[in-house]
């Protein structure tokens, strides 16, 4: 048979592509459930990281069930819409951010760390090269920061990518997001060595200015959605 004729080449290529496509489709659908479970477990680890919990060698799913005592979904007026199990966990926060103000469903995770209530909020934003994301945990006063976690898809290693490490994340601890009159002030990420001396500023990363500013913008945009919730006291009234 002439394996060099045009007809043979075209048929060969077509058959090959169809077989390969079929095979990949089967593999992908068979493994989908296990992969989704892994992604969910990873999300749980990220949320626990914002609570400064050491996950080394521990079952993250069990720890998640232990620390996260309640999940709820609220709207921008801080009215609770949903409090079923995993209601916040299932929300794709990025999609909610793109919706109209009154349609947004905002996830809040409520954790109990050593008897103290902590509130965890999702963060989604864009860095220099790709998406950045994280979680931020506030203390019971809904103002001072208890812990934070950031990660990124493709920031520059050694520069912007430093946001994924503890030295940067720990600078946020005990900073505040509300001004004295309870208006939302957020956190400013300063150019390095500008000596952040008040409770609303942190040091940026040298050489990672765009990523640092992206973190600032992300915190401002995402936490800004919860303004009404921050002004609420823990029993539902205003502060």
């Amino acid at each position, binding site marked *: 048979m002439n*394996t060099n004729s045009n007809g*043979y080449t075209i048929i*060969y290529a077509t058959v090959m592509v169809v077989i*390969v496509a079929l095979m*990949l489709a089967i593999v992908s659908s068979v*493994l989908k459930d296990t992969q989704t479970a*892994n992604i969910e477990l990873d999300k749980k680890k990220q949320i626990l990281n914002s609570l400064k919990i050491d996950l080394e060698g521990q079952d993250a799913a069990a720890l998640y069930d232990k620390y996260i005592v309640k999940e709820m979904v609220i709207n921008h007026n801080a009215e609770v819409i949903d409090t079923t199990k995993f209601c916040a966990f299932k929300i794709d926060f990025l999609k909610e951010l793109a919706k109209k103000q009154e349609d947004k469903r905002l996830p809040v995770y409520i954790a109990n760390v050593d008897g103290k209530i902590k509130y965890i909020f999702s963060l989604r934003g864009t860095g220099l090269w790709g998406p950045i994301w994280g979680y931020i945990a506030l203390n019971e006063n809904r103002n001072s920061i208890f812990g934070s976690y950031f990660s990124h898809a493709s920031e520059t290693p050694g520069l912007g990518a430093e946001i994924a490490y503890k030295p940067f994340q720990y600078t946020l601890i005990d900073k505040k997001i509300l001004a004295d009159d309870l208006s939302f002030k957020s956190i400013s990420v300063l150019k390095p060595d500008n000596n952040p001396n008040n409770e609303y500023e942190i040091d940026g990363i040298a050489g990672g200015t765009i990523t640092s500013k992206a973190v600032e913008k992300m915190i401002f945009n995402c936490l800004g959605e919860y303004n009404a919730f921050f002004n609420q006291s823990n029993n539902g009234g205003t502060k």
Partner: protein
Amino acid sequence: MSKLFSEKTKQVFLGPLSKNNPITVQVLGICSALAVTSKLEPALVMGISVTIIVAFSNVIISLLRNTIPNRIRIIVQLVVVAALVTVVSEILKAYAYDVSVQLSVYIGLIITNCILMGRLEAFAMSNKPWESFVDGLGNGFGYAWILVAVAFFRELLGSGSLLGFKVIPHAFYQAGYVNNGLMILPPMALILVACIIWVHRSRNKELQEK
């Protein structure tokens, strides 16, 4: 049995482990060798993945070798490799999620690993499936043992651990021992590969250029 392990097949398997090593002699596929060797675990996974992919793509191409139209043979080789890499990457995502996150793009980049295309074009296109399989295994292991050797020293000296377990006793640190941060950085991989090539060449004089 004697046919399966003839002198030639043995040579096909043992050659790439030493005198014809893809990394230290042919200097192929070193991009990934430098990138994934700061820890032992990803290096092991990468070595196993490449071995599996190179062995099976060799077999598949060898089985198809008489039917492949000459003009699109590189494309056919690429499709076979890309399909296998995608399958391996999906399996890793399902059963070794942390490792797959760590290896991130490098699993995908196995497709462009020079060792694979080199073996397919140079060996599988003109040899029988069994020999091609052995050749794939040989080259895969040849690649893997260099990776593991480099990763062993980088993790041991750079992080004081092996496979994530601390092996340098706490007393050493109290006595003033410090992990060598340079070991974690990419240049050290290059220097370690160079050291292996140096030892390798001084032991095998026939590899030295006149």
